[in-house]
Every structure is written in structure tokens, then in C-alpha cells.
């Protein structure tokens, strides 16, 4: 079970939330209070609770996005763009302590690079405000890899786990030395990796151009500690554009992440979002 934080840790925890709220509100995001319980979930794994009052099974929320979809569905008239933020614990049996606290935000109605940049820049401001400057921003576009795989008529399920685990040993056995999958696994770097990918995988041009434009925008705003990882496949099934994760050195888990999921709220409506994993930051600040 989750340990109780010390006063010092709790102070750091509340400070991250305070700074996060300040920055998001300054950028026009409005707080939305979301319930801890759900009657449905997008995720396969969840923690259920028997509601003894009504004799029904309910779930501890495992994803905020599903709750926001329901909120959005209930609104008949919406002024776009819509900027929302929320905070609280997510519950999942796979989490180390069953729950993880996050402050998350969604930008609904802003297309492509403008939206992606805004989300990343808000995260950048939040991390700067809590004096974390040595993070690594990893930018991906899982739609790129989807296009590369579908252009080659390969069983996606067969390669998905091998790509996720970067299992080069098995991939070499299956596809031989120097296969396209092997090239994909090692596609990480700065902007030059985009040129390399364009030569190798022209079918992914549209997705690569999106990354290139985002990098232009990040560099114009002095964000240079990024790495492009073209080997990343979808972490969540609804991602369909640029995704990103923020890591601190000497750790193995993200302290923030997010991505684009156009059309999830309503057909034709672009959307992107991000979240800061407050518990993971506390763990790494020790």
C-alpha cells in the first residue's frame, strides 16, 4: 500500500500542484472537478468496488479522458478552443501503489503544431517553476510507425511487443540483420533523424513533417533538450498524432506525458493533452 508522505514530501507535492494550477490558469485553462468513481472505463484493467448502497459494481477511475468525453458529450453548445485542467488520483492494479496522482490538462479545438506546442510549453513552464531544468523531452509520432508497418503488409501484433521492448535479438532472428524494423528501433536523435527517416521511410513523410514543424517551434522558444524517438508505438489506443514523454535523468519512468487524439471528443474536433505525474517527481526528488 502507498506510504504516507512526510511533511517535507507533502510540501513539495502541494507546491507542484500549486505551481501547476497557477501556470495552467495563466494560460487560460479552467479547472474541472472530476469524480473518483466511474460506471464505465476505456481501460482493460481497473479496480472495481461493490457499491453496497445500490448493489452495483462501480470502478475507481483509471483514466480521466473518458470522464472528459462524457462531460463533453453532455454539452450541446461549446465555444472552442476549450482549455480544461483537472487533478486527482488514477487507479490501476498495474500501478506500483495502485494509484498515481496527476495534474492533467486538455486543449480541445486547436489543430496540429499549435496545440502540441502549447501543451509542451505549459509542461516546460511547470517544470521550470519547480526548478527542474535537466529533464529530457522525448518526442514521438506513433502514426509514423503505423504507416511504415501497414505499408509493408506485416502483422502488427507480431511486431508490437518486440518494438515496445526493443527486442533486437528476436527481431534479428525473425527478419534478419539490418531489416526495416531494426532501423526503426534505432531511430532516435536530433533533427537529423528526420532526414534519415524520410530517406528510409517516405511513406511516413506527413508525420515526419509534423515533428519537424514542432521542433522548429520548440527551438524558436529556446527548448533544445529534446530527443526525437521514431521507434515509439502507441502507449494509448486513442493517440493519433504527436506524443511526448518527459523524463528526468537516472530514472526509468516518465514524470509527464501526453499526446494528440483528434476526434476522440467529437468527430472532426482536434484535441491534445498532457499530464504531470506528481508521485513520480517526488520519488525522483529524494
Amino acid at each position, binding site marked *: 500500500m502507498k506510504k504516507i508522505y512526510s511533511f517535507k514530501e507533502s510540501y513539495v507535492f502541494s507546491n507542484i500542484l500549486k505551481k501547476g494550477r497557477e501556470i495552467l490558469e495563466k494560460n487560460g485553462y479552467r479547472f474541472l472537478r472530476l469524480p473518483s468513481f466511474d460506471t464505465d472505463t476505456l481501460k482493460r484493467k481497473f479496480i472495481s468496488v461493490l457499491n453496497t448502497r445500490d448493489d452495483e459494481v462501480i470502478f475507481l477511475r483509471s483514466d480521466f479522458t473518458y470522464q472528459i468525453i462524457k462531460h463533453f458529450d453532455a454539452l450541446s453548445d461549446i465555444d472552442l478552443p476549450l482549455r480544461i485542467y483537472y487533478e486527482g488520483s488514477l487507479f490501476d492494479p498495474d500501478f506500483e501503489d495502485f494509484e498515481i496522482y496527476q495534474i492533467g490538462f486538455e486543449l480541445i479545438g486547436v489543430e496540429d503544431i499549435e496545440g502540441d506546442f502549447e501543451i509542451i510549453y505549459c509542461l516546460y513552464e511547470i517544470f521550470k517553476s519547480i526548478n527542474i531544468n535537466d529533464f*529530457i523531452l*522525448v518526442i514521438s509520432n506513433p502514426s509514423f510507425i503505423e504507416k511504415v508497418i501497414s505499408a509493408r503488409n506485416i502483422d502488427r501484433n507480431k511486431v508490437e511487443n518486440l518494438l515496445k*521492448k*526493443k*527486442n*533486437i*535479438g*528476436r527481431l*534479428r*532472428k525473425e527478419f*534478419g*540483420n539490418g531489416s526495416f524494423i531494426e532501423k526503426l528501433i*534505432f531511430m*532516435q*536523435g536530433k533533427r537529423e533523424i528526420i532526414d534519415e527517416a524520410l530517406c528510409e521511410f517516405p511513406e511516413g513523410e506527413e508525420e515526419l513533417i509534423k515533428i519537424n514543424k514542432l521542433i522548429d517551434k520548440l527551438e524558436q522558444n529556446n527548448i533544445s533538450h529534446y*530527443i526525437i*524517438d521514431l521507434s515509439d508505438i502507441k502507449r494509448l489506443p486513442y493517440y493519433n498524432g504527436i506524443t511526448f514523454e518527459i*523524463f*528526468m*535523468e*537516472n*530514472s*526509468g*519512468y516518465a514524470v509527464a506525458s501526453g499526446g494528440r487524439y483528434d476526434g476522440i471528443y467529437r468527430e472532426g474536433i482536434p484535441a491534445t493533452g498532457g499530464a504531470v505525474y506528481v508521485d513520480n517527481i517526488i520519488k525522483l526528488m529524494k
Partner: protein
Amino acid sequence: MKLTCALPKGRLFEESVNLLIGKGILRERIEEGRKLVIEKGNLRMILAKPFDVPVYVEEGVADIGIVGRDVLLEKKPRVYEFGDLGIGKCTIVVAGKEADREKYKTSPYIRVATKYPNLTKSFFEKKNVKASIIHLNGSVELAPILGLSDYIVDLVQTGRTLRENNLAIIEEIGESTGVLIGNRVSFIAKREFIVDIIHKLFSI
């Protein structure tokens, strides 16, 4: 820049060192002794208990590590698994007394002692067999002999320890060999170094 590699003490240690030397990654032999951190050139090696290797790698204390597949199946760490190294080949098995072989097929409920509670739970759940798992840290073979459990789930290399304790393999669960694992952030931050090691270890 230094690269930290976690190596498992015990069964896999000797073969891991031989492999690293054979592939030109490690220049000199290192011995398993009391020293737990050994530096050789730009490689820093942490000698850890097999079950702790993925913990060091997941938490970023080590950039890469070598660990048995059995440990990965048990702990399911959030690390990259670059591939099987083909060393330390063993089999994960269900074993028990020869006299209990038939009971294994017909019993709806069994007691199983093991060092691998998660792996064992998931194996029997898939078979729809209700198993009470007894978590032990070593000498698992004692459990059926002394009546603590009906069966054990353990790693077997030659089967000699089982035979010496009058136990037999009842069912094979899977194969386990040494696997090269890597930290997700190190793969980005120390990419050149790690990619070079991967190429050396998995060249066909």
C-alpha cells in the same frame, strides 16, 4: 561517460562475464567476490542478486543489466528487453513427488511452493486450477518433502537437485535464458554506448 551494468551473482555470473569478454565489451576478467562495484575502463559493474538486477535497471541506477527470463516473468519490470543472450539455459517447471503425478491432473486445488509467486499464480490461473501459493526464498525442494506443499515451481538446469530429493518434473512452464535489459532513459541519454553493446551482443 560511464555505463553502469548490473550483473547477477550466482548461476549466470560466470557465463555473463565470459560473454562480455568474448564479445570485446569487457577487457579483463572480473571475479565474484565481496566487491560489489567494479570499474573497468568506461564500464562500471554492479554485482547484484538476480532478483535485484531489474530493480537497479528500472530505477536508473544501472543503464543495462543481464538477468534470467524467469526473473523478468516474475517481476515484469518496466525495462527494455534487448534480447535473449543464449546463456544460462534453464527450464521453469512444476515438480513434485512421482506418486503425486496423477493427482496433479485431477486435483481442483493444489498447494505450490515457489520463489516465483506471480509467475506461478498467472500460470495456474490460465489453467483454471485453484492454487494456494507458498512464497519461499530458497531450498524450495524441501516443501513437498516436508509436506508444506504438494508441488513446487522452480528453475531446473540439469534436474540433479530434483532427483537427489526424489522429485520429478511434472510439467514444463517455459524456458529461461539470460536477457540483456536496458533502462528507458539511458537508451536515450547514452544511446551510442548502448547501441554499440547491442550490436556486439546480437550480431548474427
